[in-house]
């Protein structure tokens, strides 16, 4: 149902007691900076903007390889909240190698299983924001592919 890498992360979080769940989220948040684009990398699509739903600018960079698999890079402004940073690292790793169509069709119910019902309840917009942005860039990519195919 979920991409294999994401499935592993979900299973990990579901085994954790609440304190360790928070610690693991913070560890992922710490590693969010590693998801930034590296020198020389090229992308099929880039979407950098500041939305009302987020405290600072978030950049999403999508590269789709020859096998049609998606790879993401992300940039986060300094005011982006810790939970958003955590979800960035989790989703960049968990969705790496999935196809844009799989990502677009991904149900969002796994977010509660990773973050926990309590954090989702008090910060619902924060927890879903990054997934929404990643789905958004996949949709644009697929729309363009379809348009190109129709024009050919």
């Amino acid at each position, binding site marked *: 149902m979920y991409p294999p890498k994401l499935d592993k992360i979900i299973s990990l979080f579901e085994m954790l007691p609440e304190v360790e769940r*928070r610690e693991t*989220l913070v560890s992922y948040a710490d590693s969010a900076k590693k998801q930034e684009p590296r020198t020389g990398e090229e992308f099929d699509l880039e979407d950098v903007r500041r939305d009302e739903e987020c405290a600072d600018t978030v950049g999403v960079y999508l590269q789709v390889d020859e096998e049609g698999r998606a790879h993401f890079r992300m940039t986060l402004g300094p*005011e982006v909240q*810790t939970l958003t940073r*955590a979800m960035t690292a989790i989703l960049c790793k968990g969705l790496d190698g999935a196809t844009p169509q799989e990502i677009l069709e991904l149900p969002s119910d796994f977010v509660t299983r990773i973050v926990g019902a*309590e*954090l989702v309840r*008090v*910060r619902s*917009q924060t927890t879903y924001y990054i997934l929404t942005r990643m789905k958004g860039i996949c949709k644009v990519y697929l729309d363009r592919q379809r348009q190109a195919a129709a024009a050919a």
Partner: protein
Amino acid sequence: MATQPTSYAHPEALVDADWLEQHSKDSDVRIVESNEDILLYDTGHIPGAVHIDWRTDLQDPVIRDYISPDQFASLCSNKGISPDTTCVFYGDKANWWACYALWAFRLFGHEKVKILNGGRDKWRADSRTWTRDVPNYPPADYPVPKKRYDKEVRAFADEALAQSKSEKPLIDVRSPGEFKGDVTHMPEYPQEGVLRGGHIPGATSVPWKTATNDDNTFKSPSELAKIYLEGCGLKQGTDTIVYCRIGERSSHTWFVLTYLLGLNNVRNYDGSWTEWGNKVGAPIEKGA
């Protein structure tokens, strides 16, 4: 021309980082971090600080209200806080939530409260000591408060309406766009379901940020007096109500008026715009 104050009315309510470092291990001092970012404390905090979340710790999980006196006593006990403990609050966002937590503590009659000037950001910017170690204090004895001091520090919608009708001071601390009714939430913040924009009739717009310097510290006594006493005509003894969107930014201004300028009779309308802007029949003014 009115004489400008040269010191805060209650200077003991505001401490700097040096004071906190000297007193952080005092047995009667507890450092309390309160943030908007729910996981920020877990990423690091001032050594010895405990975490109090404005929503999960201070608010009732079902009704839009605060916890009961029983629950407050339990919360304090678990954090090693007794009625004689001096709580020094600090946090992100220029101490919005620190001031909110302090105000909530006053709601239960806890009197020994202070704010760390400049909050979390200044402490970090000054490269002060930092840790991820979570302290574990023995439970303290905190008798259940006999009452909540709603009448003294808190205002409700009907009281805000009466304040408006009697043309007594109402300070709207939201951004100018929110006050004018152009937007119903701060830029970069979620829309929390408010149906109408504008402000309570007769309210004066004084955004919370007016009271702070660029490093999130509070402005000088004379600058604050100029803004609120001269500029808004606030006086000792006059009922004043402050409000914002959900009561956190107005807690910041409530702290300024109550502790730094020493005005009595200042209350925080914590229902704020998320209540007023949805309330059927509530009068609203738009524009500057």
